């Protein structure tokens, strides 16, 4: 079709420039690269590298892979030489909540009194969650739980420099079964007393 039209145009060279221009312009406007529009438009980009191109490739493709060596983690040691667990009871939280319930406030007063007497100790508050949430959100929720407890200890006069918080999300459950009783035990703030080396 395109060829025929080209021939016709050639034969009719004697026509006025204006008429050719008109034919051309209308041809371009109306038809454009018509064929292209008919062919499936979605697959236009990468189809440039089609089989023909591959066939023309000289020689064989060498299949390679970058070697992945095993490496060692950057070691980061804890500055604390000693950890004491179990001196204080866990503070438990409601599902997806991070406010400290009234019932736990006596336990918190016990901690603040102990901290006042043991001036070199640091208390680390570990925030934990039950397994029902998703990893990253649980890590944030555990962080909020630890911070809520920290805020209450601050209000009782424990200096900020002697309180640390860390979240373990759902990764370190205290109770392994999948039931409400167990989940309730896992939604907790857990206290660890830390002693620096040499103290």
């Amino acid at each position, binding site marked *: 079709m395109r060829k025929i039209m080209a021939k016709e145009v050639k034969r009719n060279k004697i*026509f006025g420039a204006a008429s050719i221009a008109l034919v051309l312009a209308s041809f371009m406007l109306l038809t454009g*690269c018509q064929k292209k529009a008919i062919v499936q438009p979605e697959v236009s980009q990468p189809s440039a590298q089609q089989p023909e191109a591959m066939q023309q490739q000289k020689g064989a493709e060498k299949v390679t892979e970058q070697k992945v060596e095993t490496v*060692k983690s950057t070691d980061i040691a804890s500055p604390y030489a000693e950890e004491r667990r179990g001196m204080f009871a866990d503070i438990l939280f409601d599902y997806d909540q991070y406010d400290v319930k009234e019932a736990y406030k006596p336990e918190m007063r016990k901690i603040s009194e102990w901290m006042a007497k043991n001036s070199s100790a640091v208390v680390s508050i570990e925030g934990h969650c039950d397994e029902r949430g998703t990893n*990253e*959100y649980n890590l*944030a929720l555990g962080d909020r739980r630890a911070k809520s407890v920290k805020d209450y200890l601050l209000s009782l006069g424990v200096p900020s420099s002697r309180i640390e918080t860390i979240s373990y*999300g759902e990764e370190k459950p205290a109770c392994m079964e999948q039931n409400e009783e167990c989940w309730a035990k896992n939604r907790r703030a857990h206290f660890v007393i830390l002693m620096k080396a040499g103290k």
Partner: protein
Amino acid sequence: MMKTDKGQRTKGKIFVFLFLLFAIHCSLFTVDAEAKIYIDITSPSAKKLPIAIYDLQGSLGKEISEIIREDLIFTGLFMYIDKASYIEGPSQAFNPQNWTPLGIEAVIKGNISVEKDLAVTINLYDTSEVKPILSKQYHTEKDLFRQLAHTIANDIYLALTGMPGIFRTKIAFVAEDEGDKGLYLMDWDGQRVRKLGLKGKLVMTPHWSSDGTKIIYSSERGRQWGIFLLEFLTMKEKRIFVSKGINMAGDFFPQGDKVAFSSSKEGTPDIYILSLRDSALKKLTSTYGIEVSPAVSPDGNSIAFVSDRGGSPQIYIMRSDGSDVRRVTFEGSYNTSPSWSPKGDRIVFSCRRGKNQICMVKPDGSELLQLTEQGNNEDPSFSPDGRYIAFSSDREKIKGIYIMRVNGEAQKRVSPKGLNAAGPGWSPN
């Protein structure tokens, strides 16, 4: 207005010339666009292409062909026709008449010679013509035969669909490693599982840079949550951020020069952007609640994240400068872990429907779909072609890495049975 005959003729010639140029231009373009596409993968109703895949002739032929078959079948675009029905002998010349009566539309034949290395010849035929539409040689070391098979599958997939395949991509994930958590890498099909050696008491989901040369992840070491970056080219790990509280990666921006992450360094978890060039830090959110899991859109202009500012964890989107925050998810009371499709037209996330499931939604909040039903499913991550999703699931009791098609079909575990694994990140290449 008077013009000479000669002048008109010259003009005429110019127009003819222009016309021919135009015609050539058109024909050049149409050659490209006319290249035959056997499967239009963008069409949801596309019929599966019936394909015959011979065992390659030679040692390792069976193994290599099986990998090619599994790759192509998992796409859901091909109907594999079993060897038993092939009339043509594997070493006989290809003859379309042996195939068209069976309704087979594409045939893969090839052979292998094994000396020191593997040398493979592959021919892909369209059964409507005698000549192969793809004829290619490969060579490689023997222990790279899986990579070789995946490379062949990629070439066949490209020839038949016009789109690059994902068969050489990898999945990074977190699994138990001698009592700690460690980073692992495996092929997308779950083979060649290897430990990277990078460990911590805890390690969270790794996220790839868009060029596939780096991952970032967060890890708890020495009672501190830090954000770490691993360069695959040098295999060097660097801690890029640490502070009190939690620090959680996060996602690369498309150019790889910045990362978004969540930190509670100022009290509550908020979203920050860290420049990897000058370590400049920019805070994007400040609420009393939790803001976590930032996912940068493929164009780098938006960040999807999780916030509990409305009373329950939901997916929100903001611009990368922190402006224009809007909520995306409204259904259900627990929507977390957003991740973008490579085109940026979908967000996949974990949705609570009794248990945690994988859901997908358009960034404007429309067309919400639930893709999984069994067990708890978390941490979805798109394949680079946007056709598959990797996620973690506890449906077989112990957590493992699963993959599925983007419509929820063909769900299967790919990580080794019995390995407690989570947090998959699908490599971009």
